[in-house]
């Protein structure tokens, strides 16, 4: 024992791993999430820091549906890159062990959970993850972990024809009636991995008819890690809804109780035992890794009652371990602003992705040139749709002030795919970084990646060689510095000052302007969302009313070193001209500050 504890470790620089056995010390790094800039990265695609965990990495570099080798060591190695970009929080894709592959597609993204409590070995081990968290925290970069509570991977099949093997069976002869009016015996393909939704539960049947509930059969294919889930209590058939794949997305029952397409089996999250198990495993991850938040997948596929239980339990847990300001924001992949906001009702999530803004503003307005008045419509609905007061025991800010604003992510085409104009992206980024809420930048945006739908939008970042002197990288970095310098742009109240219905050659076409005010600090942002012509905050003789006192001189602080200045007129209005794709940030000249590093 003496040799082990004293002599041996002192020789040859021996490493004692035992400190890593225990959960890390819980530390707090967030004052106000509105100050943060989130960077979404897919671990498999960000950086490959350790080639020794490249199990099954595809040799075809263009095959983006397979593993490509990124890992936590890669994040550690490229922490300088993140810091140079100016992001202050990193959202990392799921950590848990996944089904390795399905139909030639890899589980690199992390959304096919097989083991809720172990680290996907493709990305490293628990030590590597903890080291990553520690390294990022040392740089004041917070870590948000992506989690999935709605479903597990394709771990079982429904034995519909009860032949004891997973089949894809073709039924029907394809015959029509004698007049060719309707299908008498249509052709139907039934996959026992992923059958269509049945509200009764998936039924066993053959051409002779039904025969009751189809047995759920767990699969043992360890060579692709398609094995029953861990912890073992998740191997309970009754913990799954067993109704098959969602086919009608407007049917709320299907959305909540159906399997996610791809055979991702829906957990019965109304079951208190399931709730308790999910609360336990995800509380465990917080304790084990000292992370600062959760990004939660597929929120609308889970009952509100679950979110009330889960979010409350997480708040209790983080309070019990001394973790402050733990953020939970969810993905409600929908265009219905009211539905999206409903998950921020009292006791539920701290925040959600601002999908309404993504579709109706970043897409309709910035990508496709729609009227900026759409922005006003959304803001008018904000208080009605989103939680307006802080959650008991949670963050100090109300959900309405914490929405996570994004241009694109791993589930939608990149901005430049749909609108391949860097200037359009640049001006959209200014809007994203200056409106209220928390900006979230999808990795590769700074490198002007332009991939289309999944998986084309999941390019390895190393294709960029991690260049930091490119124009978009510098643009994002400057916007991050601007937010650090002017607190009004992060915590300030938001007031829309000008939007327009015009999309032609009218004076104010494509213009949006707003103020952010935080006490004495006020900033005015004026944006020409399109590149069609110079526009202004004025139309038909009327000018934009602003919150500054008449005679206040405003200086343009973005673009940096612009030098232009404006004076608020005696009637409290201001006409600001913005060139095509130009965005200006102005502050009272008396409050101009040197840009923080």
């Amino acid at each position, binding site marked *: 024992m003496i040799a*082990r504890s004293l002599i041996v470790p002192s020789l040859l620089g*021996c*490493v004692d*791993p*035992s400190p890593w*056995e225990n959960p890390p010390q819980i530390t707090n790094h967030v004052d106000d999430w509105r100050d943060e800039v989130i960077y979404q990265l897919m671990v498999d695609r960000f950086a490959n820091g350790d080639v020794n965990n490249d199990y099954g990495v595809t040799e075809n570099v263009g*095959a983006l549906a397979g593993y490509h080798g990124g890992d936590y060591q890669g994040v550690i190695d490229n922490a300088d890159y993140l810091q140079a970009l100016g992001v202050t929080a990193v959202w990392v894709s799921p950590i848990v062990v996944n089904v390795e592959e399905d139909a030639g597609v890899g589980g690199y993204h992390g959304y096919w959970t097989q083991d809720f409590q172990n680290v996907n070995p493709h990305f490293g081990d628990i*030590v590597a993850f903890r080291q990553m968290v520690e390294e990022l925290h040392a740089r004041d970069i917070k870590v948000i972990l992506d989690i999935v509570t709605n479903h597990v991977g394709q771990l079982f099949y429904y034995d519909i024809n009860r032949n004891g093997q997973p089949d894809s069976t073709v039924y029907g002869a394809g015959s029509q009636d004698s007049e060719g009016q309707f299908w008498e015996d249509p052709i139907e393909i039934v996959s026992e991995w992923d059958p269509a939704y049945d509200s009764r539960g998936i039924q066993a049947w053959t051409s002779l008819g039904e025969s009751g509930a189809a047995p759920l059969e767990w699969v043992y294919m360890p060579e692709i890690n398609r094995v029953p889930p861990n912890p073992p209590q998740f191997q309970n058939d009754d913990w799954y809804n067993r109704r098959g794949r969602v086919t009608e997305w407007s049917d709320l029952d299907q959305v909540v109780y159906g399997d996610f397409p791809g055979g991702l089996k829906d957990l019965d999250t109304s079951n208190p035992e399931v709730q308790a198990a999910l609360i336990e495993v995800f509380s465990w991850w917080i304790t084990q890794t000292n992370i600062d938040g959760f990004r939660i997948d597929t929120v609308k596929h889970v009952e509100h009652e679950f979110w009330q239980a889960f979010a409350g339990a997480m708040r209790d847990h983080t309070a019990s371990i001394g973790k402050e300001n733990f953020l939970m924001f969810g993905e409600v992949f929908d265009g219905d602003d009211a539905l999206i906001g409903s998950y921020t009702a009292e006791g539920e999530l701290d925040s959600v992705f601002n999908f309404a803004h993504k579709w109706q503003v970043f897409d309709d307005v910035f990508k496709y040139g729609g009227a900026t008045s759409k922005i006003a419509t959304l803001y008018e609905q904000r208080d009605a749709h989103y939680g307006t007061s802080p959650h008991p025991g949670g963050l100090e800010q109300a959900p309405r002030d914490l929405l996570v604003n994004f241009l694109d992510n791993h589930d939608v085409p990149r901005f430049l795919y749909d609108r391949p104009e860097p200037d359009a992206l640049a001006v959209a980024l200014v809007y994203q970084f200056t409106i209220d809420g928390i900006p979230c930048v999808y990795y590769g945006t700074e490198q002007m990646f332009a991939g289309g739908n999944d998986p084309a939008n999941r390019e390895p970042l190393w294709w960029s060689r991690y260049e930091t002197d490119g124009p978009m990288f510098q643009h994002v970095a400057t916007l991050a510095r601007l937010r650090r310098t002017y607190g009004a742009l992060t915590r300030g109240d938001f007031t829309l000052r000008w939007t327009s219905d015009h999309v032609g050659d009218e004076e104010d076409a494509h213009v949006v302007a707003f103020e952010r005010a935080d006490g004495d600090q006020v900033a005015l942002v004026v944006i020409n969302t399109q590149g069609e012509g110079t526009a202004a905050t004025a139309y038909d003789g009327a000018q934009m009313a602003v919150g500054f006192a008449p005679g206040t001189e405003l200086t343009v602080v973005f673009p940096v070193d612009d030098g232009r200045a404006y004076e608020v007129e005696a009637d409290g209005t201001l006409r600001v001209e913005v060139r095509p794709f130009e965005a200006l940030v102005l502050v009272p000249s008396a409050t101009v500050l040197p840009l923080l590093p």
Partner: protein
Amino acid sequence: MLVWLVSSALAGEPEEGFYAGSYGRIDTSTDLEGGGGDAVKVATWGPRLELDPYMELDLGWVQRAQDGARFKVLITPALSGDLFHYDGQWSEALAVRNLFAEASEFTEGAPLSAWAGSRMVRGDDVYLLDFWPLDELNLVGGGVVARPGRSEVSVSVGANRLTGSTWQYQEVVVQEPGSVDGQTVVALDRQRALGTLRLGVEIPAGDVTIRPRLYGEVHALPRGERIEVDPFTEPERVPMASDGGVLVGGQLSAWGWAPSSFVHVWARYASGLAHYGELTIPVDGLDREYRARDAWSFLAATAGNHETKSFSLAWGAYLYYKVDADGVVVDFDDRWEWVEVVRPQLFATDHLAVGLEVSHQHVRPNGLNPQTGAADEPDVVKISLLPAIQIERGAYARPRLHAVYTVSVLDAAARGFWSPSDTRLHGGAQQYVGIGAEWWLDSTRPLTPDAAPL
């Protein structure tokens, strides 16, 4: 080993003509629960008792020229793996371990030997653990040995080109010019160059001989380029960085105070490819350029035997620290190992002996066990009872028939080195009973240093 082979005929080698020899071992066992006995090993090298069957057959010819120059050709085919009579598969693995010609006594007055071909170049081993701590190199090439007086200087150079992956050699199918057919061409062919130097001297000290040795080994692999082959995409040329490694170490041996009694002590440092060994394709723990050059290891070891007419005590032990090239500090793959084994034996008659072997394996990884998430330090203790019938008294007297009963005690950390799904390891103690045999019949493998001095 090299010196012994080239310097003079071993006991079984004739002055001229054909000769044969063999080394072999074979064991079979039961776990007393209906299954076969299984090796229980958590360290890199474990007790020899649990090795798979193996056999070498030495076939040699010696010819002398009229002026006395001596030429020898040695061919050593070897078999390993489960035997046909056990698994019913006609599939024992065959390899040629020696295939070389050697010339000696060809220069009057100059104690030189030379060889060319394919051979094992080996020094002394830790018999009870079946490993060579310092000088063990298998290569195709040649060498020269000078043996002035009681000293030796030997140099070997050679190469290998391992197949089984696209690390050193790759063939691809390309379009045949002027045809719609495909033809196979070599896309990658990079040899690992190997070189060794060994210096030694025997120093008599009364009845005892002391022999210090220095040994060095160099591995060099040039850069190359392989082709990523995927039928659904254009072939892509992937550069492969050059790599290399060195091994340096020393050995101190003594023998002569009693028959078949000796002691060896080794220390060595190895880096890069030399750390992995010449027959290993390094696939784990590499740097981002897929190189092994930053891997290193330190090894200290000892082995020996002391015996009298009725008793012997053999031992072996090593202390090993290895670090791979991936740069990860808290790394389960980087570790300390220390292993000790002792085997006392009593010789009741000229042919009946009974031995007791006790061994201990300890591993101290620098990282957490990915299976348990703990800083596991497994310990395995084994005790074996070894009654034997052998050709004569002595720890190394062979041929020998033996029975063996072994119990292995594993702590929880050691059990954590096996998959929970592995039904072979269901408790903290494993046992087996077996019978086996081992022989050296005029083999080129010397048993003890006093059997083949310089």
